[in-house]
């Protein structure tokens, strides 16, 4: 929605994922004093899963708007992207430096799977089911924003923000709305991720993670929700996770993981050059053409008009 439909180059998207992850973690963990000083963090409320996920969505939305405010007011799109990249770096540095907030560079751990009570393996699969259901729900909700008049308005803003303002649209408000909705989605994804992997630290949300997300959008197809979903599956699961199953090279530890990023970078450049619209391009909407309109159109086409203005 942000990059492909609204044209907001949010290079700080990983920050809203982190906001959701930290929010979920500190809301589901108990008080920090209860673990013998093993890790320090704020809040600690032992809240239920659903409440914590909703709070993570709200946190993501708020952080998304705050990020948007820093760069959206008077900057051109490319400069906005740069500002957001800087915001991303600053946020990771601040959170890493302040040990009392989210346990600094060590990050938070011991975030438990809320469904693990039914046995570890089955709890994990239950969690996978919840995530899958969330993805389907998220996809349906996102269609409400990216389709219809609102989606059309966002795409208009993406194509030409001055022309969008000229037809009475507040570009700033539309961008902040986009950042809020995108932030809420990011917050939920961060919450679901940390609930499964059990921990979250600044190293998990370095800025290259945002670039991986952008690659998924570019490969899948900007402005096409199905394409982006497939792009995310291919880039994140098959590529970045898949390389971990490659055999390690003893003389160069870590090289196999680096292969994932190398392939990711090459893929991005290749698609930008050769197929910028992605594997699944944005779909052209078709409006129902009533028979009486068709007759009138045919009559109009017979007369003079601007449609036959070759070279005009």
């Amino acid at each position, binding site marked *: 929605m942000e990059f492909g439909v609204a044209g907001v180059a949010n290079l700080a998207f990983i920050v809203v994922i982190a906001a959701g992850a930290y929010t979920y973690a500190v809301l589901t963990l108990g008080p920090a004093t209860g673990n013998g000083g093993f890790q320090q963090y704020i809040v600690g409320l032992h809240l239920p899963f659903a409440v914590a996920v909703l709070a993570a969505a709200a946190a993501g939305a708020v952080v998304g708007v705050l990020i948007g405010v820093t760069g959206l007011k008077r900057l051109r799109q490319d400069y906005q992207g740069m500002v957001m990249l800087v915001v991303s770096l600053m946020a990771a540095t601040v959170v890493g430096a302040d040990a009392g907030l989210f346990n600094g560079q060590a990050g938070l751990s011991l975030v438990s799977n809320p469904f693990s009570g039914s046995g570890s393996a089955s709890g994990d699969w239950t969690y996978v089911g919840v995530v899958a259901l969330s993805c389907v729900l998220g996809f349906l909700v996102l269609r409400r924003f990216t389709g*219809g*008049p609102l989606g059309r308005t966002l795409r208009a803003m993406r*194509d030409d923000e*001055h*022309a969008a303002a000229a037809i*009475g649209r507040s570009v700033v408000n539309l961008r902040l709305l986009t950042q809020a909705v995108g932030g809420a989605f990011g917050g939920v994804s961060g919450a679901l991720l940390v609930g499964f992997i059990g921990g979250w630290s600044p190293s998990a949300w370095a800025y290259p993670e945002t670039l991986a997300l952008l690659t998924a959008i570019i490969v899948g197809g900007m402005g096409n929700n199905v394409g982006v979903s497939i792009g995310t599956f291919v880039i994140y699961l098959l590529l970045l996770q898949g390389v971990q199953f490659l055999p390690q090279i003893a003389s160069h530890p870590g090289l196999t993981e680096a292969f994932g990023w190398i392939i990711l970078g090459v893929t991005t450049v290749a698609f930008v050059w050769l197929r910028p619209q992605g594997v699944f391009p*944005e779909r052209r909407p078709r409006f129902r053409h009533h028979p009486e309109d068709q007759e009138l159109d045919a009559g109009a086409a017979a007369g*003079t008009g*601007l449609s036959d203005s070759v070279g*005009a």
Partner: protein
Amino acid sequence: MADATPVPPLAPPPAGGVVERAGPAAGHGSRHQGPPLLEVEQLVKHYGGVRAVDGVSFAVPAGSITGLIGPNGAGKSTVLAVVSGFAPPTGGRIRFAGRAVTGLPMHRLARQGMVRTFQLARVFGGLTTLENLLVAVPGQRGLSPLGVVGGRWIWGGEERRLVKEARRVLRRFGMASKADDYARTLSGGQKRAVEIMRCLMMRPRLLLLDEPMAGLSPRLVTELERILLELRDEGLALLIVEHELETVDRLCSTVVAMAHGRVIAEGTMADLRTRREVQDAYVVG
């Protein structure tokens, strides 16, 4: 609507100014002139140390076509940019439909009924021609929170009605066959037409056109002139920045001539042709 009284100036000429009003505006469409819809008073716009617009005053009557002419660098497009809210003014006052609108941003002025096109046609290239028209309609249900949540149940009926309306506008401009084409694939003249059609979907009260005839073939100029006159007859007011003086002569009941950021004369095109200061501005610069 039958008032043929020339519109009085809003403010006295700037100190040292050379504004002289020609005789009564008896040009085309003068019978449609009404009270001022747009009033610009002592408008100033500086870019750093450059005074691009220096105390410009004029009015656009309702239901008329007013031309803004002048040689390159006269400040015409800057006036249009400031009046439309594209750029903030350095000084002066702007009133639209009786309300002070000085310094309001472009999107708020557009919502009040003052809509502009650009010197280089700006279309939404990733949208189809039909979508370019639909997106401009103000107050659509699909843009409200209820519309987003409810989806087609809320805005489907309205959308069908708007599509029919957009197709009517496309037929009027002879572009019905281009409805499903991406706007980025249209020719320059077609893009210009899309811009104007998009404005019309907003049901504006005042249309600001920045060199609408630039780059169009003579046949298209004639076609567009016919449409603009029709729109005027339907009650729309237009302010046109244009280099093609024959077009200005055919369309505009009142013409404001500018040079060096100032208004140097105002009247009908026929009158202005005889004016020495206008001739000097075009010949001498």
